[in-house]
């Protein structure tokens, strides 16, 4: 063995007054721990032969120890002056080797820990590089594997909550392909659901990004209830009457949601979002749905505190597009909301009652929505000129005049 290590250890011990443990020596010189132990032993023997200043050493003793009638495997660090006494107490000695060499007589093992603490900390990534304890299966995870494990720990939590709702949310897109639940089958069998959900889009647009799995579950429940609605075609016909518009809108909207179904996945997602939003303010959805066949019975819907109702004339609130469902007329609003028009689509965004009143006669007009858009715009422009002279001081009168002429 090269003798240079003796000088190195001598420098550490005598010049620097350091405590040299076999672990710190192996990390400092880059040798195996067993080699470091032999180095310390040779250094100790060499110095004691030279009768140099007194050196102190500690030993690591492992073996079987019988105490209180029980045999245990004991690992101890003992001072050199206590070594023989300790060895005599052991029933079986497995190994004895030098643990550390230092000039000072240590009173306790605290400094030994401090030495190894700093040595390991300085070589944190390679602290076990020269270790004799190895496990083939123990390998550090790569950063990619670490990220995956972290994701797995995070994902399982939302998964059980959304397991049922996701299936409901992915109805239109996956209902046909994954008939795992009856709910999925219901969505897939009802194309009207898509159209009705489109109405909910504008209202729930803001909420699309904040869909909660619990809300999705509510949506699924709501969809189950909606399935009852499309069975009766009568409410759809009755919705034509202006008086029953308000009531029928609710029923139609719900029927639409059940009957109509968009083929696009995005629309279905929006539908789901709408459905999610709708049940929140509507606490009596289950009560409302059975009333849909009878317009009279649907009146309670109006009374119910539904902020999402599109009846501007009543509440003067903002028009809720999803409420306005017409089979024949669906178009995108300026806000990008799906609106089914009965004639007052253009006024649907306004919040005044006049718009609602004007919308009533407008419902009797041609039911085509798209031409109405252009026609209304043109009519407004033309009729604004005509009644301008007659209705100079009343802006609302001009709008009324627009409808009256027709």
């Amino acid at each position, binding site marked *: 063995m090269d003798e240079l290590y003796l000088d190195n250890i001598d420098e550490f011990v005598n010049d620097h*007054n*350091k*405590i040299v443990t076999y672990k710190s020596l192996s990390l400092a010189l880059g040798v195996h721990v067993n080699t470091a132990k032999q180095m310390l032993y040779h250094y100790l023997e060499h110095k004691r032969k030279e009768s140099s200043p007194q050196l102190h050493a500690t030993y690591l003793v492992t073996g079987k120890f019988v105490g209180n009638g029980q045999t245990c495997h004991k690992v101890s660090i003992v001072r050199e002056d206590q070594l023989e006494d300790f060895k005599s107490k052991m029933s079986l000695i497995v190994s004895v080797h030098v643990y550390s060499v*230092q*000039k*000072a*007589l*240590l*009173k*306790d*093992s*605290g*400094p030994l*820990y*401090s*030495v190894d*603490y*700093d040595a390991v*900390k300085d070589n944190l990534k390679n602290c076990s590089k020269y270790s004799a304890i190895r496990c083939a299966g123990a390998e550090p995870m790569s950063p990619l594997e670490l990220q995956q494990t972290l994701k797995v720990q995070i994902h399982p939590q939302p998964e059980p909550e959304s397991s049922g709702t996701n299936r409901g949310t992915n109805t239109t897109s996956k209902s046909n392909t994954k008939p795992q639940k009856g709910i999925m089958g219901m969505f897939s069998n009802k194309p009207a659901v898509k159209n009705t959900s489109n109405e909910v889009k504008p209202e729930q647009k803001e909420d699309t990004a904040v869909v909660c799995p619990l809300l999705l579950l509510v949506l699924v429940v709501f969809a189950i209830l909606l399935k009852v609605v499309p069975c009766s075609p009568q409410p759809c016909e009755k919705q034509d009457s202006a008086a029953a518009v308000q009531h029928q809108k609710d029923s139609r909207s719900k029927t639409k949601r059940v009957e109509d179904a968009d083929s696009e996945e995005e629309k279905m997602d929006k539908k789901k979002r709408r459905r999610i939003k709708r049940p929140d303010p509507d606490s009596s959805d289950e009560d409302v749905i059975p009333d849909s066949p009878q317009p009279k019975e649907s009146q309670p819907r109006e009374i119910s505190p539904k902020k999402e109702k599109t009846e501007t004339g009543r509440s003067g609130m903002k028009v809720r597009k999803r409420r306005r469902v017409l089979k024949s007329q669906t178009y995108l609003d300026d806000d990008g909301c799906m609106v089914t028009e009965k004639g007052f689509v253009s006024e649907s965004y306004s919040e005044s009652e006049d718009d609602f009143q004007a919308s009533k006669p407008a419902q009797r007009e041609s039911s085509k929505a798209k031409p109405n858009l252009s026609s209304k715009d043109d009519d407004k422009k033309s009729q604004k000129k005509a009644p301008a002279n007659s209705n100079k001081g009343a802006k609302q009168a001009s709008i009324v005049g627009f409808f009256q002429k027709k």
Partner: protein
Amino acid sequence: MTTLTRQDLNFGRVVADVLCEFLEVAVHLILYVREVYPSGIFQKRKKYNIPVKMSCHPDLNQYIQDTLLCIKPLIEKNDAEKVVVVIVDKDHRPVERFVFEICQPPLLSISSDSLLSHVEQLLRAFILKISVCDAVLTSNPPGCSFSVLVHTRDAATRNMEKVQVMKDFPWIVADEQEVHMKEPRLVPLKSMTSDIIKMQLYVEERAQKT
């Protein structure tokens, strides 16, 4: 990187807190290693992630705490030059003087990421050096006691009087024989340089202790 000045009180307090904590650990360890008090009154504690010895005697602990409490204002204002732990024999003659020379930079730049960990590592090295100082020092005679001296700037002594009144902890001017030792043997132990403080520890040992 943040540049602070001495006028920043928070910085002074941080340094004073860190240093006083360290001095408390160091004083206890010196008393244990130099066998000023029986080893039975010391119990193992943890500081800077390493085991250290600390006295469990209440009067001794209170004395050390009060001493460092009075020193803290001086360190905050950078008025303390040295903190000395003097071990005296039965005749009140100093046998050993553990001198902590303290110097704080007037202007510094702090990187909050690794500042405290680096300082902790340096302080840990100080503790380790105190633990093995037996190898370079001769043993003390029995019956020794200890005292703590603070070397301050001239203007700071007036503040010390005020602090004395407030703290109700008497500080007196040290005796000349405790301050200066005849022909001491200088044994350097450890020095450190960090962003917030510079400190070195050496021991002045009397040649003949008995």
